[in-house]
């Protein structure tokens, strides 16, 4: 590894780790270490326990006699010496992945035209068309590779969290969705990595407004009564009210407003799940009558309210908000 790469890696290591990352280390963290790795080399705080040689704050100050990690003078700021996440996660690979991602992003995004209308409505859709990616460009998009758990042999790498707020809404949307999805996939099985990544998300100032949406994306499915009862409560960060039967397309089909606006047609669900359902209705993803794929919205345009409601409930189950 060149000195430049090492500098780049170290910068990102600092960026990705909170200074107090040790607080997020779970008691069972050692179970994730490679065989033969000394626990103390990765998690010095876990092995420290009692050490008669550990320095103490000298007498004469209010903290005199307390254990300290730093040298003389009682530096109580925790700066874990030798905290080597690479032993745990093969951090270099993660960093290399991020590097590749960055370069791919710049090359792929260059072709995109048009700018956003502002900060509002990040979870809306880009209605206008942009030039297609020319396949002859042969540029590989920054894809999310399926992880080991799915039998592909790939790593499920944490997505890149840019330090600065992306200017374009679509770029912000991608970061937020990727972060939420990655945490949802990994919070249960890669506890430490997920905790550290959550720390990185929390550290990014520009993401502060999205952390509720990222958090609620991991909500467990609930029954319909619970989701509908929440509609009556005051608004709740990270949640949105969702029409089980799509409002605009139902109106376009002259379905009664009483049915569309009925409390029975509303449920409060996580914001990003709401987004996912809307996207599911808009994307061509199901077989149409002539063999070509059509969108769910097209499929339902001549269906009655009850059929739309059945589909509406099913989409909620499929995205994991309804039991």
């Amino acid at each position, binding site marked *: 590894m060149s000195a430049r790469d090492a500098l780049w890696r170290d910068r990102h290591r600092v960026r990705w780790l909170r200074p107090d990352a040790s607080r997020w280390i779970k008691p069972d963290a050692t179970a994730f270490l490679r065989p033969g790795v000394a626990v103390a080399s990765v998690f010095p705080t876990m092995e420290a326990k009692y050490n008669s040689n550990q320095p103490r704050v000298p007498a004469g100050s209010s903290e005199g006699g307390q254990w300290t990690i730093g040298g003389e003078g009682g530096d109580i700021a925790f700066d874990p010496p030798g905290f080597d996440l690479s032993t745990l996660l093969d951090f270099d690979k993660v960093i290399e992945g991020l590097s590749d991602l960055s370069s791919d992003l710049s090359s*792929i995004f260059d072709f995109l035209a048009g700018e956003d209308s502002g900060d509002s409505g990040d*979870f*809306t859709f*880009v*209605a*206008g*068309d*942009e030039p*297609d*990616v*020319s*396949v*002859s460009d*042969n540029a*590989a*998009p*920054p*894809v*999310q*590779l*399926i992880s080991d758990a*799915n*039998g*592909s042999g*790939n790593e499920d790498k944490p997505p890149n969290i840019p330090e600065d707020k992306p200017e374009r*809404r*679509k*770029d912000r*949307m*991608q970061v937020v*969705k*990727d972060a939420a*999805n990655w945490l*949802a*996939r990994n919070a249960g099985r890669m506890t430490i990595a997920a905790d550290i990544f959550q720390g990185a998300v929390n550290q990014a100032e520009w993401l502060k407004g999205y952390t509720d949406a990222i958090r609620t994306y991991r909500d467990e499915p609930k029954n319909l009564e619970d989701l509908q009862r929440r509609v009556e409560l005051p608004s709740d960060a990270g949640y949105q009210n969702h029409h089980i039967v799509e409002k605009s397309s139902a109106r376009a089909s002259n379905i009664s407003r009483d049915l569309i606006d009925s409390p029975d047609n509303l449920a409060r669900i996580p914001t990003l799940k709401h*987004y*996912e359902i809307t*996207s*599911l209705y*808009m*994307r*061509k*993803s*199901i*077989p149409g*009558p*002539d*063999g*070509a*794929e059509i*969108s*769910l919205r097209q*499929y339902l345009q001549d*269906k009655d309210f009850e*059929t739309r409601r059945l589909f509406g409930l*099913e989409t909620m*189950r*499929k*995205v*994991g908000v309804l039991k």
Partner: protein
Amino acid sequence: MITPVSQMSLEGLIELYCQLGAQQDLAERRGEIAKFNRLVDRVTEIENELGRRPGDQRTVLLKLYGHAVMQVRLNAAKGTMKVAPAEARKQLELIAESKWYPQAADAGMYLYVIDGKFDKPRR
């Protein structure tokens, strides 16, 4: 200049098929639904071209069930529904159960439609 699919080699078609799937994945994550839908049409165009070739070459898509990009797996499963329905269904069920969104939801709704009391697929 883009080569018409009818003049592309089998390997070229498969490579293009994978690229388009990866581009769909990105477009969805960025909320570019119009672009995603245009890419669906191009994916279908390749599937149709494979189907026109001697022996119905859509079976080559079976090997993409193990592709690293979930959208490519999903496309391959749908694209082989006609030539290997049992394998395709199994693959769609796996994707639906994977909780890898949004493809898990797409696969689930696809199965819901073809299994439902509603319109049957005719592809």
